[in-house]
């Protein structure tokens, strides 16, 4: 250690995390501070690295499906959808219509659940304690639907390659509709609590601005990109699983600041409810499982399939060598890539804003580290 007193140091290095309540997991951010001002950051990640891609290379295609739920564990169903679509593409098959509609309903519910968790914890970071209870209360209703449907609440393993394993339970439509009816007023309630709240506005407006150009430069997707005014959503741009049949809008923001990202996510929840309502009304009858061989051996080839997960573009790059196990399975995690923009967003801001920005990125460390 060089001899120096703390008085002559102009830069203070502060460790935030990995055990820090508002890093949403085990993210470690090394902050270089000049007083209250952040001069630079460095993210140290990997604390939750489980080698998901290596595991994927050593499991059969069906066996790997439960593992993808454990990446972005607050949006497990979306992960499962992306993986199933990728393998289905590799096999060049499609799930039957009934399965597709069910998948849409469940993933949209999942989007709401993920955004609710984000909203609750984000508000908690900013200092509003009330919303977290309300958000978890409503999220509980979604988890109950999952529990009734597939028997698990969080890591659902709801979808199988080629369709679904479980037939819809009696009362699924009613429960989902009841949830939609109950939920929309609740969103208004959250907005009542937060949108005009002066602390909330003061902490979020103009904080962590990321423009559309910067977003593209950093590969940032999802609500963060849309808040910057780029009207891009994979559900519209490259529809999958029958999303082209539904009527919904892509909410966008203008300034690309934290407040806009909040507004975009609130709107997205409303749009998800809209999609769910349309989908529940037209669940077709028919089989739920496509023609999939018992032993899945896709022909030699590679595909990249991506979906709009709650956090952004979630992609799977699967290389097959005509064996029962993927030759290479790469996950393109939205959280990992969005987190890279953290440095740009916090530079020049205040320490307190770091918490707001980490929250607004909506990262899940299970997905960042895989």
């Amino acid at each position: 250690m060089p001899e120096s007193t703390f008085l002559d140091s102009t830069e203070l290095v502060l460790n935030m995390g990995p055990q820090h309540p508002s890093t949403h997991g085990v993210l470690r951010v090394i902050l270089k501070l000049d007083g209250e001002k952040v001069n630079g950051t460095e993210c140290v990640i990997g604390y939750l690295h489980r080698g998901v891609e290596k595991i994927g290379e050593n499991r059969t295609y069906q066996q790997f499906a439960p593992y993808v739920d454990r990446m972005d564990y607050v949006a497990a169903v979306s992960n499962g959808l992306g993986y199933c679509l990728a393998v289905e593409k590799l096999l060049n098959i499609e799930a039957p219509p009934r399965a597709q509609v069910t998948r849409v309903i469940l993933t949209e519910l999942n989007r709401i659940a993920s955004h609710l968790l984000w909203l609750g914890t984000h508000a908690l970071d900013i200092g509003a304690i009330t919303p977290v209870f309300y958000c978890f209360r409503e999220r509980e209703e979604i988890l109950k639907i999952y529990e009734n449907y597939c028997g698990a609440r969080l890591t659902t393993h709801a979808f199988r390659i080629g369709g679904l394993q479980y037939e819809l339970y009696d009362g699924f439509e009613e429960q989902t509709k009841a949830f939609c009816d109950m939920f929309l007023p609740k969103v208004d309630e959250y907005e009542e609590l937060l949108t005009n709240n002066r602390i909330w506005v003061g902490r979020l407006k103009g904080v962590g601005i990321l423009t559309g150009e910067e977003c593209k430069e950093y590969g940032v997707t999802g609500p963060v990109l849309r808040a910057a005014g780029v009207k891009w959503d994979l559900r519209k741009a490259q529809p999958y699983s029958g999303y082209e049949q539904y009527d919904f809008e892509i909410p966008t923001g203008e300034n690309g600041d934290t407040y806009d990202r909040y507004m975009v996510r609130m709107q997205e929840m409303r749009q998800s409810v809209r999609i769910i309502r349309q989908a529940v009304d037209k669940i077709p009858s028919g089989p739920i499982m496509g023609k999939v061989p018992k032993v899945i051996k896709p022909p030699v080839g590679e595909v990249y399939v991506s979906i709009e997960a709650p956090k952004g573009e979630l992609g799977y790059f699967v290389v097959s060598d005509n064996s029962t196990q993927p030759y290479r399975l790469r996950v393109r995690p939205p959280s990992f890539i969005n987190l890279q923009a953290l440095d740009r967003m916090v530079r020049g801001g205040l320490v307190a804003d770091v918490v707001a920005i980490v929250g607004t990125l909506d990262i899940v460390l299970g997905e960042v580290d895989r």
Partner: protein
Amino acid sequence: MGKLFRKIFLVDLFQGLWVTFRNQNPKYIYTEQYPAERPKVAERYRGAPRLNINPENGETLCIGCNLCALACPEGLIVVTTERNEKTRRKELTTFTYDTSRCMFCGLCEDACPVDALELTQDFELASYTREGAIWDRQMLEEGPKPTRYRC
């Protein structure tokens, strides 16, 4: 002017407080009194594994086909069988299931051709030792016996 009014009279604050106040209604109590009251889990809940027995004669339904062990991503099921020379059939000797590594994905249940292996609604799987999480055939057939609390 309106903005100033809102600012002076703390309209946003009272708006928020009103939402909080509305939710004080005891109708909205969500807390579960576990363990005094056990929560009711869904019918399809994937919890503790169970090896079903035929209720009529108490014999196991398992035919020892090993499909569950092959389907399991974690490879935590070990099935051993013995050939019965009289009936010329495979008979189950032991069945071990390591719940400590189980992620309750349900693939074993799906793979079972005779519905012998099943994930049930029991969700209390804690044990005092690591070895306690490895369930043998007897444990799988009887199911876990969690402590019931009287309150």
